[in-house]
């Protein structure tokens, strides 16, 4: 097998290419995949790596995402390390099998290039696809940039395959904003990633004919509930395993993802913004500008959305004056999905801050630092809390 990276290498990559490098370095046995914008460059780049002999993977060109996830479950039960990638309608078509993948404890790794769900049909970024899948039993990791997409999908795969977890993991990067934008990315040497992640050993590989098993059996009212409860345990274990793996990864890479969310200028913050994914980068610019105006503002960027870092976020928000929760998805008929999580998390807190819900960026609508900065006026008391507002909407 040809190697292309013997030492650490800093280069210009799109988020999609960074995700493809992770896939190459994780050396999956099987990748069943179906192309869809804006995920396509992930699998295109990876397919090129396979064709050029950089990695020995069986790519299965399936006829739909439903088949992609079905093949992924089958191969994973067989004992293979399985990766795939998708976006939007593709994730929607997979969703039925996504629930089965997690219930059968298949540690499948999936790169998601987040894109608005139809309708109306649209190819640009929002989080409606990932949020649709939030209850499917997958670990969900949101990435701000290409470097995070690379790093966190490496850590994510080791997390998925940890015997205390054994859950599928989706690593989500914003469609186009990250998948198609080039930025400097530090790649680890191939050998280092291979060693860090190790070899995947399935608990009950279906192809082990010496130890026969039945997988995915019918579970009636006498057992279904218990098997779902096992998934609850697995999710709860993610917090601790994430911490351990990030320590290990920091030693390897020098990049430290401390805690379950990034705390940006939070220590003395009176007003806190919460946002997922690429918009965190825009929010940091807004925070820096507001800080120059002596405003005590900070940003909380969850890396994990499932499991949700409930306790840690409640602690971080305790005692601040107001929180702007920015949702790039709707849960029609209710609050934004992130708002609901934060609101529930604060139930245990006595000094509960005021909460403001902002919906932004649907269908790829641009979001600028000045728009985020102007939100602060609401938080400072100009507008009522507990109202859903829309940023950048003509109304």
């Amino acid at each position: 097998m040809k190697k292309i990276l013997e030492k650490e290498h800093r280069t210009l990559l799109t988020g999609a290419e960074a995700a493809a490098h992770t896939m190459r370095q994780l050396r999956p046995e099987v990748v069943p995949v179906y192309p869809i914008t804006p995920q396509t460059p992930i699998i295109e780049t990876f397919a090129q790596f396979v064709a050029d002999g950089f990695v020995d993977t069986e790519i299965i060109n399936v006829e739909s995402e439903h088949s992609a996830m079905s093949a992924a479950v089958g191969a994973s039960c067989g004992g293979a390390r399985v990766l795939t990638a998708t976006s939007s309608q593709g994730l929607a078509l997979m969703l039925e099998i996504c629930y089965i993948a997690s219930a059968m404890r298949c540690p499948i790794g999936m790169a998601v290039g987040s894109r608005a769900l139809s309708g109306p049909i649209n190819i640009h970024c929002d989080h409606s696809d990932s949020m649709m899948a939030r209850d499917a039993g997958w670990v969900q990791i949101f990435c701000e940039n290409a470097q995070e997409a690379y790093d966190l999908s490496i850590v994510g795969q080791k997390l998925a395959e940890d015997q205390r977890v054994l859950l599928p993991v989706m690593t989500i990067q914003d469609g186009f904003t990250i998948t198609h934008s080039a930025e400097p990315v530090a790649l680890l040497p191939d050998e280092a990633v291979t060693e860090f992640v190790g070899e995947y050993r399935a608990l009950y590989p279906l192809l082990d004919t010496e130890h026969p098993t039945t997988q995915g059996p019918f579970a009636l009212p006498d057992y279904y509930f218990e098997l779902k409860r096992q998934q609850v345990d697995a999710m709860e274990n993610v917090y601790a395993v994430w911490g351990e793996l990030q320590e290990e990864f920091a030693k390897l890479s020098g990049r430290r993802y401390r805690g379950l969310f990034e705390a940006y200028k939070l220590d003395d913050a009176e007003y806190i913004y919460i946002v997922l994914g690429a918009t965190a980068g825009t929010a940091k610019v807004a925070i820096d500008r507001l800080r120059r105006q002596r405003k005590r503002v900070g940003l909380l960027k969850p890396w994990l959305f499932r499991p949700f870092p409930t306790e840690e976020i409640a602690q971080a928000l305790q005692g601040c004056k107001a929180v702007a929760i920015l949702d790039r998805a709707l849960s029609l008929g209710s609050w934004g999905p992130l708002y609901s999580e934060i609101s529930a998390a604060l139930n245990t807190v006595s000094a509960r801050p005021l909460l403001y819900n902002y919906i932004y960026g649907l269908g790829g609508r641009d979001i600028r630092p000045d728009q985020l900065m102007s939100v602060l006026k609401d938080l400072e008391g100009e507008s009522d809390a507990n109202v859903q507002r829309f940023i950048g909407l003509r109304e």
Partner: protein
Amino acid sequence: MLKRYQELPLGGVVVGGATLQLVKTGSWRSGEKPFYDEKRCIHCLLCWVHCPEATILIEDGQMRGFDYEHCKGCGLCAEHCPTDAIQMLSEMAPSPCP
């Protein structure tokens, strides 16, 4: 005794082979079950090949009947029988093949 969630293999995997024996799937039958006519049977064992629950009883390579405790009544054996030795008949009917 039903197991607690901590005692179950992860993902509901059933560990070990031949676990079919533990579940009396014959109770799933509704209406019809297979009967076979010894005189027409050529012991090709296609019924044995197609039966999803391994309920075709074989002795010395010869078809000898059905394990009705496990036969779900799917009718695949009758469908595949090349000599029509196997027929699906009402549960209530007296055996036509004494």
